[in-house]
């Protein structure tokens, strides 16, 4: 019984101390609320994005704050990838005076957050959500990463330039990303005179891709290229099954293939082409960011979410400076007017868009040795950019 009482007491104490502890926020600072899923399906994206964001906010604060004058205070809350917790923490952040919300890297939590920030017009920017639909909630919602339709259009242009004429799409209706990416690719590919030969559907975490591989292998005429926005563990399972069946058709995918795990798959991914948000060319700002981050934290950023998180910090600084005020609506309006903003991963333009930034998309190729080769960097051609 003693043990039970101790446990009960400990639990109650934790709950009460926790509930009572609200961080004291200074009045002469800019308060940014950060939804960051540290566990669950969003953790692989929110984690690095938050690390990069925090790193650059620290840099900004070390230099005196936003534009050297306005220190930034962060309210960071773990949402556990749970949309209900996300809703709760955004409300709390607003209660605590958040003037800007950085939301999780997916459409669901970002849209849910944006509906809460809508009445006061508090600018809300997603860490790395790429579904172009997410900015439709209101004029205060912003993307930060090149949207799926931009990635699809750039990849389709590259594919047509390589002389590919027939594509096989493999998509999963289980998420907006795995469904939207191949569809945007297909639309742009057809605009450029290509043909969508066929489509296969898969489920997230599907263990066996042999049926899909058999269908593709038996397609007559055979496709020139297979496009999927599948992520792990689906992509590794698919590519192994495909190559195992002796199908050596070119495979292309979305930016989610830009991970060390996929590159580490060896021979089966040799030659796979994918989009990416940026590429750390030697001497670039991106390479410099990696060096600074590594020196400060001992961690090597191995995906683009780190640098994109950092870019968000500087986007906010730019918008606040342009607004000349911290008024939420003024900051949102200023953000929407940014043209050719200086970004570390790539430059960005909100002006003239529906607030999904126009950013260069990188196309890269994976080598059998586990390396990533730069192919090209391009902005999406507005003439063939599919509608959200």
């Amino acid at each position: 019984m003693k043990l039970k009482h101790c446990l009960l007491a400990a639990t109650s104490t934790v709950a009460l101390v926790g509930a009572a502890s609200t961080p004291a926020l200074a009045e002469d600072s800019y308060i940014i609320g950060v939804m960051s899923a540290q566990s669950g399906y969003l953790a692989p994206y929110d984690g690095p994005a938050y690390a990069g964001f925090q790193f650059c906010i620290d840099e900004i604060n070390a230099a005196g704050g936003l534009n050297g004058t306005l220190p930034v205070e962060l309210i960071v809350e773990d949402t556990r990838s749970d949309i209900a917790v996300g809703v709760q923490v955004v409300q709390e952040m607003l209660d605590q005076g958040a003037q800007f919300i950085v939301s999780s890297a997916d459409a669901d939590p970002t849209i849910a957050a944006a509906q809460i920030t809508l009445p006061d017009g508090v600018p809300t920017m997603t860490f790395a959500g790429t579904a172009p639909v997410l900015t439709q909630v209101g004029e205060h919602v912003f993307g930060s990463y090149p949207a799926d339709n931009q990635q699809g259009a750039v990849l389709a242009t590259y594919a047509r330039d390589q002389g590919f004429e027939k594509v096989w799409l493999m998509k999963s209706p289980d998420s907006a990303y795995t469904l939207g990416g191949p569809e945007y690719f297909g639309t742009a590919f057809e605009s450029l005179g290509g043909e969508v030969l066929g489509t296969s559907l898969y489920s997230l975490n599907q263990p066996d891709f042999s049926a899909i591989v058999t269908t593709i292998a038996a397609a007559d005429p055979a496709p020139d290229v297979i496009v999927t926005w599948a992520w792990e563990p689906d992509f590794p399972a698919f590519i192994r099954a495909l190559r195992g069946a002796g199908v050596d058709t070119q495979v292309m995918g979305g930016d989610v293939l830009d991970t060390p795990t996929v590159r580490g798959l060896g021979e089966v991914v040799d030659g796979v082409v994918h989009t990416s948000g940026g590429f750390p060319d030697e001497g670039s700002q991106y390479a410099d960011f990696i060096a600074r981050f590594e020196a400060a934290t001992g961690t090597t950023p191995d995906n683009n979410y780190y640098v994109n998180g950092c870019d968000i910090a500087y986007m906010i600084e730019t918008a606040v400076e342009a607004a000349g005020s911290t008024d939420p609506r003024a900051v949102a309006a200023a953000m929407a007017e940014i043209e050719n903003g200086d970004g570390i991963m790539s430059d960005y333009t909100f002006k003239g868009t529906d607030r999904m930034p126009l950013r260069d998309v990188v196309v890269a190729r994976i080598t059998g040795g586990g390396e990533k080769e730069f192919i090209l960097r391009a902005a999406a051609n507005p003439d063939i950019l599919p509608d959200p």
Partner: protein
Amino acid sequence: MSAPLATLPGRLRAANLAQTVVCLCLLGLVVGALILLFGRTGERIAVLMSVNVAAVVALGVFCGNTGIVSFGHGAFMLLGAYTSGILTMSASLQRSALPNLPGFLAGHELSLLTVTPIVALAGLGLAAASGSAIARLAGASATIATLGLLIILHSLAVGARDITRGSQTFYGITRITDVLPILAVALAFIVIARLYRESRWGLMARAVRDDAAAAEALGINPRRTRFIAWCLSGTMAALAGALYGHMLGAYSPASFYLSLVFAQVAMLIVGGMTSVSGAVTGVITVSLLQDGVRRLEGGITVLGVELPAVFGLTTVSLGIAILLIIWLRPAGIIGGQELGPSPDARLLAGLGARTPAAPAPQTRKTAVLQAEGLSKSFAGVHAVSEAGLSAPTGTITGLIGPNGAGKSTLVNLLTRAYDADRGSAAFGGADLLTTRRDGIAGLGVARTFQNLRLFDDLTVYENVLVSAIAAGHGGQAAAGIALRELAAFELGEVASQRAGALPYGARKRLEIARAVAQDPGIILLDEPAAGMNPAETEDLADRLIRVVEERGTGMLLIDHDLRFVNRLSTRIVVMNRGAVIAEGSPDAIRADARVIEAYVGRGRTAAQAHETGQSRDPNRNPEPFAGEEAVP
């Protein structure tokens, strides 16, 4: 001195009311304290907590009362959220967000109150459609079926892109941010769940949960009770889903999938699955724990010491809490009993009008249980072979035989627990073998089981009450009957105890009291005295004789205690190796060579066996009738 038995039904009603009030107050107080102490932050926590209470209480209506863990309630929540979302959405937003929405769903712009009955009907419709399949199953297979329902609904929602936007975010839903309406729904759900739990259908569902075979023998249809629990629970879950959707404002099918369902099942298990206060306590505990830890994990300053940010603590702490609770309190924090005073509480001693015990039932008309040519084989072994007997009402017919003679199998054939291969059986002219298992009781045939089958998590009173209810009696009448039988079998003192907590002898008496409460024409008693000491056996014999004499009930009595059988029985039927080898008066049976041979062995006499003490089969009584000793 305990309160008189006659006031038990009244005290029970008062206790139920008090327990419901305690549960309502618990939630109300926690919500009030959160708001008072932490202002708007507290209100935010209270909103999510109240939505979760509504959802988990809805889940508990099915899981708690049927004992089947459901992962399918996410399907109802999804249905409720999308139904309510579509029908309440502003027409202009609907045109842009859902341009291909079918005409019959478009442009309704209903208010939240108007949409409520529609959501409830949608939930009920899905529950009725899925329940006919799920209610047939029990245990793990039922759980897997509920998971199947979730997967089907999730896939349909993802596929129906014109209606749901597929896997994309469904947004623009009217948000409810005020705690009061949400709290009101949660409180209403607690009341509904408590009313159902104590209703005849709730009681029967709990009886089926504890022992489906025993419930069927009382005439309770397990499928129907599970179906009703599923329908009510599904309807409530659809409403909770609508509430959840309006709290979120934006969601996708993934919002109602496994992670949500697992979290809610975890809350239910933490609090205690079988009680409404368990569901409420589980939600409160998990919510406060998670919210408290969430605030700590971002890093705080305590007494000048800055603690670093450690993300992931929330998930870890919930995992540890579940492990600790399963270890320390396997039945959950609250356990099986509702929070609040029990009917025996001093507080309620003076309450409760006296419920008169029902008068002794009319003496039954004479009828005969008649079986002919019954046969049953299991994998080629003839357990019962061409067995026949007749047992009239108003007397006790003994059925004896060595172990493995087929006595219990015969009872199982008569009560349809097994399907007979051949033969016929009727009671009072009604054919037993074409009757469903749960219809046997309705023909006037009750039974007890060789291995005690009580409803262990029901109270003693409820065990007998549910029997009377299953026999078709209304609330007051059933209560009167239960009191009568509890008094007749001297179980009044322990009436509000859990049946599972009774000593063995009392459990045996309870099983008989439960059978007698149906006022059956005949009771098939399968080893009622097994394990009893001589005094208890004597006492039981007296009670059985009284039942037969006062009510004209017949009994078919199986027992190995031959003195007990001889004392009670007018006639005795003897079985060996699946066949009836003799029947007649106790005296005739005592002298029957075939019977002695069955017990002692071919070529021996009782005296020889006694002299040599060489009974090869320890289960055979070496001296079946000479000393009339009980066989262990």
